[in-house]
C-alpha cells in the first residue's frame, strides 16, 4: 500500500491552499482529485458565471491575483486557470482522475481507498467543496411530468431553456439565472424566500471592500452569536459584472421578472407560494439598512467621508401583490436554485450529522487527525470564499502538525 503523511481530498482552492501550507512545513502529502484541478469551476458552473468577490479579494497562501483588473470579477474559466496556475506555482502533488471510495481507520491512522488503490496516511483533509451536490426540495417529486427540472450546476446558458421558467430561490444563483433568462427574452417567475440583499457598490466602493474593511468577513465561528444560522445563511444576492451592476428584486422586476413568495407546495398542476413575501423583503431591507448604517458609522469615525462618495442608499424593495398560486401548465422549466447539500457517501456515518453534513468544530472533526476545509463559515464568515480559505488552511495545518507531533510522541 502506498503511504503518505496527509491525504487531501479535493484539488480546488481549499485542497491547494492546504497543500501549500503542508509543503511549507515539509509535510509529505498527496492531493486526490476525482477529475482535474478546479473541476467544479470547469464543469459545474454556467457560462456567464463570475465570482461575487472582486479580483483583488483573491488571496491564497503564497499566491494572489496579479492581473490588470483588480476591481473586476473573474469568470469561472478564469478561476479554473487561476487555480491551475496556483497548483503549478506551489507544485502541489495532485493526483487527478482519482476518486475516493472510502476513508477508514488504518494501521498508521487512516486508509483512503481510491479507484486507483489504497493510500495509508496519518491524517485526512476533506476539501471537496460546498457547492457540488444540489439540494432539491422534496416537492420536486410532485411537479407534473411535463416540467423540466434543472439545478444551476446543470445550466450552461439561456439557450438551454425554452418557454416559461420558474426559478426557485433568490440567492446569488437564482437571482443571476432569473436575470440572465429574462434578459434573453424568457418569461421568468422567481420564487423568493429569505434572502440577503446587497448593492454591488455603496458610496462608490464595492460592497465587499466595505465588508472586508469593516472586518465582517473575518467574523469567527467561535464568536458569532448563532453559528448554525450563520452557516446556513443563503448566499449574497449579488452578481459580478463588468458594469458593477446591482442585482436585487427591484432590478429583476425592471428586467421583467415576476416575483412570487417562497414555493411551499404543489397541488396537482398548481404551484403554491407563501404569503410571506412582504415580510421576507422587509427583513432584507432592514438588514441591509443596518449594514449601511454600520458602513456610514465606520466612514465617519475613521474619517473616510471625504474619500468616499456620498451615501447612495438603494430604494426600498418594491413588493408586488404576488400570486399565491400559478398553473404549472403554463411553465416548461423549474430551476432549483435552492442551495447545496452535503454528499459524503465515502465517509463513515458517525462522522456526519443526521443530514449528512460533516460534524466538525472549526474544521476539526471528531476523529483525531481528520479535518474539513472550505465549508460555509467553517472558521470565518469568508471560509468558503476564495479569499477566505487561506487563513483556515493555516489554522488547520497548525492543528494538524500538533496532531502529528502527538501521534509521533505516543509512538515513541
Amino acid at each position, binding site marked *: 500500500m502506498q503511504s503518505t503523511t496527509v491525504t487531501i481530498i479535493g484539488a480546488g482552492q481549499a485542497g491547494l491552499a492546504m497543500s501549500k501550507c503542508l509543503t511549507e512545513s515539509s509535510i509529505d502529502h498527496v492531493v486526490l482529485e476525482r477529475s482535474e484541478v478546479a473541476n467544479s469551476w470547469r464543469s459545474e458552473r454556467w457560462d456567464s458565471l463570475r465570482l461575487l468577490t472582486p479580483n483583488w479579494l483573491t488571496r491564497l497562501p503564497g499566491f494572489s491575483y496579479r492581473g490588470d483588473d483588480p476591481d473586476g470579477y473573474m469568470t469561472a474559466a478564469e478561476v479554473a486557470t487561476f487555480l491551475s496556475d496556483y497548483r503549478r506555482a506551489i507544485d502541489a502533488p495532485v493526483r487527478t482522475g482519482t476518486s475516493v471510495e472510502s476513508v477508514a481507520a488504518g494501521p498508521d491512522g487512516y486508509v483512503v481507498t481510491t479507484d486507483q488503490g489504497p493510500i495509508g496516511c496519518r491524517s485526512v483533509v476533506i476539501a471537496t467543496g460546498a457547492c457540488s451536490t444540489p439540494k432539491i426540495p422534496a416537492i420536486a417529486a410532485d411537479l407534473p411530468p411535463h416540467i423540466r427540472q434543472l439545478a444551476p450546476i446543470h445550466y450552461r446558458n439561456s439557450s438551454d431553456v425554452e418557454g416559461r421558467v420558474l426559478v426557485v430561490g433568490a440567492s446569488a444563483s437564482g437571482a443571476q439565472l432569473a436575470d440572465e433568462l429574462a434578459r434573453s427574452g424568457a418569461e421568468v417567475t422567481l420564487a423568493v424566500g429569505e434572502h440577503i440583499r446587497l448593492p454591488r457598490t455603496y458610496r462608490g466602493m464595492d460592497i465587499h471592500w466595505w465588508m472586508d474593511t469593516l472586518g465582517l468577513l473575518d467574523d469567527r465561528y467561535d464568536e458569532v452569536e448563532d453559528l448554525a*444560522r450563520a452557516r446556513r445563511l443563503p448566499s449574497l444576492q449579488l452578481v459580478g459584472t463588468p458594469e458593477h451592476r446591482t442585482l436585487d428584486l427591484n432590478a429583476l422586476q425592471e428586467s421583467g421578472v415576476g416575483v412570487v*413568495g417562497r414555493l411551499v407546495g404543489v397541488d396537482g398542476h398548481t404551484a403554491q407560494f407563501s404569503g410571506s413575501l412582504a415580510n421576507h423583503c422587509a427583513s432584507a431591507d432592514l438588514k441591509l439598512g443596518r449594514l449601511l448604517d454600520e458602513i456610514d458609522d465606520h466612514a465617519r469615525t475613521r474619517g473616510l467621508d471625504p474619500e468616499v462618495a456620498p451615501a447612495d442608499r438603494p430604494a426600498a424593495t418594491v413588493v408586488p401583490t404576488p400570486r399565491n398560486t400559478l398553473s404549472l401548465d403554463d411553465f416548461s422549466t423549474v430551476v432549483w436554485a435552492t442551495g447545496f447539500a452535503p454528499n459524503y457517501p465515502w465517509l463513515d456515518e458517525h462522522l456526519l450529522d443526521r443530514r449528512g453534513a460533516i460534524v466538525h468544530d472549526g474544521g476539526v472533526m471528531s476523529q483525531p487527525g481528520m479535518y474539513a476545509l472550505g465549508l460555509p463559515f467553517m472558521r470565518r464568515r469568508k471560509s468558503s470564499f476564495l479569499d477566505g480559505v487561506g487563513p483556515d488552511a493555516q489554522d488547520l495545518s497548525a492543528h494538524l502538525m500538533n496532531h502529528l507531533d502527538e501521534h509521533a510522541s505516543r509512538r515513541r
Partner: protein
Amino acid sequence: MSITEATAADNGVDVAHLMHAREAMTATPAAAQFTFTANNEWVRGTHSRTSVKDFFGVGAPQSHRQTYSVDTDHPEVFSSADNGPTPPEMVLIGLAGCLTAGVASVAQNRGIQLRSVKATVEGNLDLAGILGIDPEVRNGFGGIDVSYEIDADATREEIEAVVAQSQKRSTVFDVVTNPTNVTVKVV
C-alpha cells in the same frame, strides 16, 4: 333543489336566505366584498385579548350583536399563566367551527336531518420550528387531522359527501390549506 326533502330537515340553517344572498351578490358583486376585523391588545406576558365587533359587508358597515372577546395565552408548561387557548388552538377552533357550520348548511340544503355532529381536530406541532432548533421544521402545524362523528338521517356515503362539500366551501379550510399574502406593518 329538492324542495320536499329540504323542507323535511331542520338543522336550524336558513338555507332560503343563503340562496337569496347568493342571487343578490351574483347581481351585485360589490355586496359580496366583506372585511372582517379583529382588534388585539397585549395584556401581560404571552397573554393578549382579541375582540371582534364591527365588520364590513353587503356594501355597508355591520356589527355583531355584541363584542366577542377571546383571551389567548400560552400554557403552564411554557411557564405562562394559561389565561386562554393558545393562538394555534384558535386556528383549530376556527377550522372546526367553520367546517361544522358548513356541514349543517350543506346537510340542510340536501335535506339531511342532523341529530348530532361532533368533531375532533388535532394539529401536530414540532416546536423545533418556532424555537429555531431546526430550520427545516416549519413553524406551523406539520399536519391537521379532523375526525367527524355524525349521526344523521343519511347513508354513510351521503354524510361523507356533506363533509367533503363543507371543506370545499370553507373559508378557514382554504386559509389553512392555501397560502395567503400577509402584510404586517407598524403604524
